[in-house]
């Protein structure tokens, strides 16, 4: 797979659960679940986020990582982490619902989509139809 998928949540359980759900439909995809602060509170963790981005950039064979977040502060953490990354332009934040967007992104990644297409798949999730 050329795209790595990173979940940045306030909750470790949400991050891990979303990954276990999405991985069922995308067995070859590399997932990185980041959630909770380093002292076990609910919140985000910049250092673990940077590490996940770097791992994703390293293992994914070139196209980049797509990032799913929960609330706004996770978005800000992910954006900050991207700026500290070796290849910030390869870190794409999806503006999409975390769980449902991750499943769509996972299926797209499994299908060999580019990072931009994976991001678009996550952002294409719709409700109320």
């Amino acid at each position: 797979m050329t795209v790595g998928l990173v979940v940045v949540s306030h909750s470790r359980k949400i991050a891990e659960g979303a990954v276990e759900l999405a991985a069922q439909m995308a067995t070859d995809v590399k997932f990185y679940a980041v959630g909770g602060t380093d002292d076990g509170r609910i919140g985000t963790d910049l250092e673990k986020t940077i590490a996940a981005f770097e791992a994703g950039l390293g293992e994914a064979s070139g196209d980049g990582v797509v990032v799913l977040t929960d609330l706004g502060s996770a978005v800000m953490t992910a954006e900050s982490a991207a700026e500290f990354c070796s290849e910030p332009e390869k870190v794409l934040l999806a503006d999409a619902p975390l769980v449902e967007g991750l499943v769509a992104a996972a299926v797209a990644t499994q299908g060999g989509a580019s990072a931009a297409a994976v991001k678009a798949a996550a952002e294409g999730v719709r409700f109320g139809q």
Partner: protein
Amino acid sequence: MGLGVEWAVQWLTLSARLMSEHREELIALDRAIGDSDHGENMDRGFQAVMEKLAQTPPETPGAALKLAAMALMSKVGGAAGPLYGTAYLRAATALGEDADIDAAALAGALTAARDGIVARGKAELGDKTMVDAWSPAVEAADEALVAGGDAVAVLAAAAEAAEVGAVTTDPLVARKGRASYLGERSAGHRDPGAVSSALLLRAAATAAGFPEGAAE
């Protein structure tokens, strides 16, 4: 003569003290329109700043602020982490390697900090966020500078304006951050991040020698 690294370290030290002292107050503010953690977030963040300061004492004001930025980003855990982290990092970049910060450099650093918060959080004035403390602070600092004020005067003006700015958030309806989930119900409460911002700017003025409580 301007402000040196001692001022920067003293600023951060006073900040840590204020965050610890106002921890419960900030938690209570965040309970009303958020998730009750702003006091804990800031207290933990500045504890980490103090640890890093002790481990690797900085040599310039810019280095001190950069160290603080990294600690806050890593340890706060909430929106305030990337926001203050970006603010302090941009301020550090603006100050560069200078050992001695004059009034103009200081006003420039405050502007850079505010611009960093806006770049990171995309809030505008009136959105009921820390921007409502920082933007008037930057304006007041610039006015003090134009009026010929020294570094202490610039910081005092900023602190004063930030405190007023925090109070102006009371009637506002939040349009950014968690409080925006509350819609109209967010009105009638003071924004916790605006309050912590005012405390941090007050600490900066006090560290520069402006008498504590002189504004009151």
